[in-house]
């Protein structure tokens, strides 16, 4: 017979493992990995795993900004649009003779400006993030179609495509873009977990009134979050040009769905104040693995969207059941 203390300590260990935020998402990732490797032997090939990472770069990077915003109990529906703004501007400017470094810098600046607009409206006028970013999505999408006359164009500049360069590690092919994404994860993880700013992000998301009462400048903090997120979307635009040397105003249509799915599957609560970046990285990989595995299985991308949609609803439902009601 088990002694009660051994039983309870065993249970508390189990509780701890389940309670550790990133364990659930990791199990989901492994489960998908096992399923896809059983159904298709090519799935686990080094080459395919490299491709999954590369395919995850854009959504994975966008999901960093999305995580910051969702941690403040906000949401960003303009994430894809801002990134596309970056690719189009950088491409247009470089193609019309601007120095490519300057072109990319201006593009990142324009993305950041979109974040200033969003953050300013949300923090200053206290408008709901959902509406503000939905409006920005509409504005940017329409503006991009106007300036690019609706068409995609190729961007062949070496600097703009630089992040597509690769290094090999034991047959594993890493693009510079993958490395930049991982560095960004490390940097923002540090900010969130080791600095006062990060702690205030959690506090503002969890209980803005309490945050205000202890003297945290809530408005300024929200603004900083939206600006930093949009800056990251600008970097993601550079990574996107490295992946596909093409600027397309109609690209990244599913970026909202995918980035929010990555964040939520990764265990960050839509109610704000809970979660973290490690979970988001795993969540982004889940989305990447899912899309890759379904593609290998020859399943239509529309079905992939459908399954991703189901996934995000299930994840949000779980969040609501476990943490929404307190």
């Amino acid at each position: 017979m088990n002694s009660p203390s051994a039983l309870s300590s065993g249970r508390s260990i189990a509780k701890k493992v389940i309670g550790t935020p990133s364990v659930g998402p990791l199990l989901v990732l492994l489960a998908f990995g096992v399923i896809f490797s059983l159904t298709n032997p090519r799935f686990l090939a080094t080459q395919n795993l490299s491709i999954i990472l590369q395919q995850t770069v854009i959504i994975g990077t966008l999901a960093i900004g999305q995580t910051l915003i969702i941690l403040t109990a906000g949401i960003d529906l303009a994430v894809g649009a801002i990134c596309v703004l970056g690719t189009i501007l950088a491409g247009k400017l470089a193609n019309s003779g601007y120095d490519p470094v300057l072109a990319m810098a201006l593009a990142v600046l324009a993305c950041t400006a979109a974040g200033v607009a969003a953050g300013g409206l949300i923090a200053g006028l206290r408008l709901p993030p959902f509406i503000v970013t939905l409006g920005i999505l509409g504005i940017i999408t329409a503006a991009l179609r106007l300036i690019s006359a609706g068409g995609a164009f190729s961007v062949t500049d070496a600097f703009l495509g630089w992040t597509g360069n690769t290094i090999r590690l034991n047959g594993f092919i890493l693009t510079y873009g993958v490395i930049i994404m991982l560095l960004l994860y490390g940097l923002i993880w540090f900010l969130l977990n080791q600095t006062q700013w990060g702690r205030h992000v959690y506090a503002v998301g969890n209980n803005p009134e309490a945050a205000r009462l202890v003297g945290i400048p809530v408005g300024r903090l929200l603004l900083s979050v939206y600006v930093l997120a949009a800056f990251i979307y600008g970097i993601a635009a550079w990574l996107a040009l490295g992946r596909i040397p093409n600027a397309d105003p109609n690209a990244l249509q599913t970026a909202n769905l995918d980035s929010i799915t990555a964040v939520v599957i990764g265990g960050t609560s839509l109610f704000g104040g809970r979660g973290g970046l490690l979970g988001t990285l795993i969540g982004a990989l889940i989305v990447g693995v899912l899309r890759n595995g379904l593609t290998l299985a020859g399943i239509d991308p529309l079905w992939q969207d459908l399954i991703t949609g189901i996934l995000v609803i299930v994840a949000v439902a779980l969040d609501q059941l476990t943490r929404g009601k307190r």
Partner: protein
Amino acid sequence: MAAAASGAPVVTAPAGVILEARNLVKRYGHVTALDGVDFELRSGEILAVVGDNGAGKSSLIKALTGALIPDSGEILLDGQPVHFKGPLDARKLGIETVYQDLAVAAALDISSNLFLGRERRRPGFLGNVLRMLDKKGMRAEAERSMADLKFHLPSIGSAVESLSGGQRQGVAVARAALFAKKLAIMDEPTAALGVRETGQVLDLIRAIRQRGLPVVLISHNMPNVFEIADRIHIMRLGRRAAVVSPKTHTMADVVAIMTGAAKVEEPASSGLRASITT
């Protein structure tokens, strides 16, 4: 506290006055929230502030914590006139406030909540340049302060939402104790709590007094007030109707003064005399 020799009880304790307000007036259009209220908190005491709804309790407390700027009158902290433009001003001068609605970030751990908004950074390069938090140092300090207050909590690293209501409010009270240099103001700290949990928080407030920090306790709960307060400041119609000692007055007396059923002699000076003629 010595009771007066004859008839009218007088509560006098000429110990140092920490916070004083004189003749505070606050009007909202035709409504007079504060009608020349006086206030006096002495060192090392628990002063309860009681009054019916609309008697001006909250307005008084808001004025003392900087959440409201009075139209006229003056506030003195340690004898020096102060002018609060907002709650942060009061906090900077060492006045901490605990609110009734549990102003904690429940998803964060106890230590994070204690230091929320006042986080400490690591020394040297890590703190100054990388802006790294001194998590260990804050935890150690949090544990020390909890032990000081004899407030027992599970691990200082556990989330506040895993605590009971009393323990949560305890965290907010302990935060005030940790940072208050002059005094702590508790606005209905036990309003949302059960009997046992209320007891925990009252013990904590006593522990704070024992450390020499004066406490202003706003409460509706007469038994609690009589259990813990050294003096009771009674508000009525935007003024201070009386200050009495729980040793010389009964709950019925206090309620009578609160509701105006009992007349109170206007104190001649600031003698804080309260004689009741029913």
